[in-house]
């Protein structure tokens, strides 16, 4: 894994942004097509996993940066290094891209030869001391003008993939992308990773803070955040579709029409921690406890199934012909 080399420089912070959206393709992609889509490099494998869900992860690609870090207190800290970007496709249907980097507590006051940054992929070094708290807040708030912009990098990769020739650019239903910004503070090796904050904000923004032991690579944190972002997107999207279907008020085929895509494309996607690093799987527990991600999902899917069952009973001839 690329991130492992970056570890040797003892980062104190890892930050990232995940963007989650529906793949613009009328049909879900199979494993082979997923591997083709995510083959960002001809000489490197796409990781494809078929169990328990079909999941494909692209090789990691780097973007060079030399700019100010996003900070909440206006401190201007120049930083140089590389940001890792990668993309994942789940069940051939949900596309995600992540941009992330790690930062050490301090760096040299001059820029090194570029080749020295490239051998530590995913590490961004501050000039001088890293203002940790201000950077954490800055990353979660989002980059200001000219500041290191994880969202731009993640979106750039997503845009590149959406234009891929494999995709017909037709979506089976409308949905909104979400973005999740995360920061992980490093803690000594051996301590248990923990999730300290998960906030659902407006406009599809989610923020999340965790504590990550030194021996867990930043890539594993990225994987956890992708998993949470994916399930949060599912909850958000299905809830929106239910709201739009006016499930309580309307009756007849219009409800079926509105809920049909949920059943066909989304209901089977719920599979928390399927591809999360073993050292981080337990972070899900906090969210299962409160607000109870899976409980909410069960409730939503039961409501949809009940509604469709009711439809089948009352209008048996129309229930399953939504179009």
């Amino acid at each position, binding site marked *: *894994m*690329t991130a*492992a*080399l970056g570890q040797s420089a003892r980062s104190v912070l890892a930050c990232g942004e995940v963007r989650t959206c529906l793949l613009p393709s009328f049909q879900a992609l199979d494993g082979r097509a997923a591997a083709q889509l995510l083959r960002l*490099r*001809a*000489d*490197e*494998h796409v*990781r*494809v*996993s*078929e*169990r328990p869900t079909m*999941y494909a992860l692209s090789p990691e*690609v*780097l*973007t*060079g*940066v*030399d*700019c*100010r870090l996003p900070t909440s207190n206006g401190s201007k800290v*120049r930083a*140089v290094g*590389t*940001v890792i970007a990668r993309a994942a496709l789940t069940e051939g249907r949900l596309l995600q891209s992540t*941009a992330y980097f790690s930062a050490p507590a301090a760096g040299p006051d001059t*820029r090194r*030869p*570029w*080749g*020295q940054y*490239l*051998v*530590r*992929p995913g590490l961004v070094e501050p000039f001088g001391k890293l203002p940790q708290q201000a950077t954490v807040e800055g990353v979660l708030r989002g*980059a200001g003008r*000219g*500041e*290191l*912009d*994880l969202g*731009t*990098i993640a979106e*750039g990769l997503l845009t590149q993939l959406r234009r891929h020739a494999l995709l017909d650019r037709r979506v089976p239903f409308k949905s909104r992308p979400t973005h999740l910004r995360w920061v992980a503070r490093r803690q000594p090796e051996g301590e248990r990773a923990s999730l300290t904050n998960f906030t659902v904000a407006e406009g599809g923004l989610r923020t999340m803070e965790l504590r990550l032991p030194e021996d867990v690579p930043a890539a594993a944190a990225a994987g956890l955040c992708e998993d949470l972002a994916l399930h949060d997107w599912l909850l958000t999207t299905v809830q929106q579709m239910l709201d739009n279907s006016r499930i309580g008020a309307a009756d007849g085929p219009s409800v079926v029409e509105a809920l049909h895509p949920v059943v066909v494309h989304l209901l089977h996607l719920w599979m928390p921690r399927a591809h999360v690093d*073993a*050292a981080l799987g337990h972070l899900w527990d906090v969210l299962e406890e409160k607000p109870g991600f899976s409980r909410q999902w069960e409730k939503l899917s039961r409501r949809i199934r009940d509604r469709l069952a009711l439809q089948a009973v009352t209008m048996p001839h129309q229930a399953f012909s939504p179009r």
Partner: protein
Amino acid sequence: MTEAVFRETTAEPVTKSVPLSHLSLELGHLYMEDFEAGPDRLREHFAEVRIWVDAVRASAARRSKRPRISTCFLIDDYFTRFSTPAELIPMVLKEAEKAGLVIDYLARESACAVADRIELAESVMHRLVESPPPGSYGSRPPVSQTGWLANGQRTPTMSRSALGEVKGWQPPGETAARNHSVFMDVELWSEKDGGRLWSCPFLAAVWQLARLGLLRHLGEPVLEPQDWKSEEFPHDWDRLPPLIKLTDTKAAFSAYRTCTLMPNRFLAVEDAVRLILDQIDVDAGALRQVADRSGGEGMAVPAAVAQRATYVFYEEPGDSSEAEGT
């Protein structure tokens, strides 16, 4: 942590390792003009090179009591096709032998573009990560020029400012400049008859990566040497494997470091090679293997890949520079 019971091989790609020497020593690089100048030219070349080979061996002996050094030689069959392996290789080997030199491995330059049906140059090109000029915050660098790679920011193209007046010339700037810039812009390829013709520095960068054991294709080693026991060589370059092993040396082709001996007219080309190497994101698995093993042998490699390549530039014997007309 317990070992996982369930595994999926497609989900856990592996980077295979390659055998590594301490030093890969290149004894020469033959172009058509050298060949046309006749065997005397080669003889002079090897006689000169011999002196530096001894110096390089002495230098390697400072790092290890029993240095593993493999020698290699490159023949251009990419830019110009000349002669045949059957005619050329025995002559090269004979002249080297006369100077007391042994060539362990011999490669064709076209192997750096495509070897064993793998597009090496293309793959390496996709690994270029341009050095970001100050102000790069994650958007695509606006100055990026397809097919070119620089060590800094180019002179902006003449544009009108908001008020409409034409701005004067602005100098380019080297990103890592110390007080003053040495700006360099390297052409990576050109388009020729609808195909791509890789530039000499770019292929030489691929060659360096191969010698440094840093090339992989889907985790597998590429450009692996094939044993060549016969004294006979084919009459067609295409029938010669991309990289052949001519001796029974135990020293592997790839090595922790490289040293290249060449006439000083190649200085600019090799500077360009370093510029390229400095902006390639090489296979992380391969990089780690080399770092671990060289460290384990107490001769840790420099972190940056470009720093692992050294050179000896010597004055070409005789009046060869005139013969070339350059």
